[in-house]
């Protein structure tokens, strides 16, 4: 059953897209991430032009993040103040990112840059997570309880000026790293079409020492706005958001997410993290192979001055 995508201007199989959305939704529900880092590469493998995959991926992330935030709001595990400061940084980062995105597309290096960013970031995050979770798994086997957050231990970040109190997170920290983190996530969101949860979550836990229970809700909260802003700017400057494509992915995604969340409850935390790490690494390796293997076609065509 094929459907013509009005912005991507190609015919695709609607069932493949629904399955793609459902599979990514399942994983994102299971691991508590937006899933943008999976959907964008999948779309690119499926021959959707990278520029459209990125912008549409950002749009799709909004849906899964809204779903997640609603349940966190109910449980009270969301720090609005922290999310707001992250967001302020995120808007600046997105704006810069979209400018860079347009520039790279013009000089023909967009695809390369997207692939490189994915390989480096997913490779690093996946590798670190895998090491950490394997250690945790070993520790639990040895009988000791896994220690994720060592409270009371301060690093250089806590010596920076302009401190601010975040009550819900029980945190008293400088706004500089919070804004910087928000900006970095915003930048990645606009270039990679991801919400940035897979970077935000470890950064909040390990760098800012935010309690783990508020991290996911807060990260999802800020991701809604960062990816909404990214979607809006991509739509106005590059006209690369395909609502038809995004909608099919969302429908598959929100359904899959609920089943994923249920499956996730049956696994232990360390096991979940190890699986997520393996998944992240697999995507990174798949993208890395494409960078190094001789492409079947050395030449590519691009329309100049779209629209």
């Amino acid at each position, binding site marked *: 059953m*094929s*459907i*013509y995508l*009005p*912005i991507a*201007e*190609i*015919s695709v199989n609607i069932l493949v897209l629904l399955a793609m959305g459902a599979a990514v939704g399942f994983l994102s529900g299971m691991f508590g991430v937006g899933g943008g880092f999976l959907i964008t590469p999948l779309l690119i493998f499926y021959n959707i032009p990278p520029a459209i995959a990125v912008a549409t991926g950002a*749009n*799709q992330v*909004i*849906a*899964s*993040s*809204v*779903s997640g935030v*609603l*349940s966190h709001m*109910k449980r009270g595990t969301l720090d609005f103040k922290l999310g707001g400061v992250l967001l302020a940084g995120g808007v600046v980062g997105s704006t810069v990112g979209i400018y860079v995105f347009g520039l790279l597309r013009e000089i*023909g*290096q967009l*695809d*390369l840059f997207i692939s490189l960013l994915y390989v480096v970031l997913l490779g690093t995050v996946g590798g670190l997570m895998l090491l950490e979770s394997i250690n945790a798994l070993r520790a639990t086997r040895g009988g000791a309880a896994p220690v994720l957050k060592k409270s009371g231990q301060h690093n250089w970040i806590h010596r920076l000026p302009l401190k601010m109190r975040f009550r819900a997170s029980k945190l008293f920290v400088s706004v500089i790293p919070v804004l910087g983190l928000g900006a970095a996530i915003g930048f990645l969101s606009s270039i990679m079409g991801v919400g940035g949860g897979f970077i935000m979550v470890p950064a909040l836990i390990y760098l800012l020492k935010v309690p783990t229970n508020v991290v996911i809700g807060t990260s999802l909260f800020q991701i*809604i706005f960062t990816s*909404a802003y990214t*979607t*809006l*700017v*991509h*739509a*106005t400057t590059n*006209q690369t*958001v395909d*609502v*038809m494509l*995004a*909608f099919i992915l*969302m*429908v598959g*995604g*929100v*359904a899959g*997410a*609920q089943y994923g*969340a*249920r499956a996730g409850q049956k696994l232990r935390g360390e096991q979940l993290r190890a699986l997520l790490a393996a998944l992240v690494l697999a995507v990174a390796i798949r993208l890395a192979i494409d*960078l*190094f293997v*001789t*492409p079947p*076609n*050395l*030449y*590519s*065509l*691009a*329309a*100049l*001055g779209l*629209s």
Partner: protein
Amino acid sequence: MATRTLPGVLLFLMLLTAQPAAAQSPHQENIQIGLSTDKVMITAGFTGADLTIFGALEDADPQIARQGRYDVIVVLEGPARPVVVRRKDRVLGVWINLESETFENVPVSYSVATTRPFQDITEPASYKQLSLGAGNIFMQPADETQNPATIAEFTTALRERKAATGQYSENVGGVQFLSQNLFRATVRLAPSVPVGTHKARAYLFKNGLFVKESSAQLEIRKSGFEQSIFRAAHDYSFLYGFFAICLAMITGWLGRVIFRKD
């Protein structure tokens, strides 16, 4: 009898001076094509299509027609747009787009249908003169000062990529004579056929010589819904983006309401 031949000979002589191509016979052939529709709609299920173009020869010589020495080539040419061709090269083991060449006014699509294989219809020089066939379209490089070898290399690559995506296609035998005067041409529209004004052209050859050309216009558009989305994305991009965000938020909220498990 003699009185009846004389005006015929006179007419023949007059034609000889006026119309060199029709030198061998008193027939002043003409070609006409007609499209059953002047608009083709791309709908949600569009996966490419075959477009049929009907045409007629006027004042054809029955003898030549019987011997099959009339040939017709029909071309459907898409709107022209500038195109960048990029070549990947290996840098430190990684494949990177390095060199590129911009061409002005490259037809986005180019579908040809012929009565017989190209080499059987006329001479290569004649195709070249008419800029007929995907291999003979002139690709104007934006920067003419570049090395001609590089330009030639990228021009070849451009044609090759276009053929690989089906945007440049050839349908040998796609033009069939239904009677001595009537023919039908089938040209292929690729799934990625560009929207815009397409030009259909028919070329008539007689005994391997070009005689006449005729053209018609065809509008290819996205159908109602797809077109509205496309237009909205370009004309009201801010509202479109806003709509995309609202749609995502509502879908997320509905997903939570419908499938909630806690």
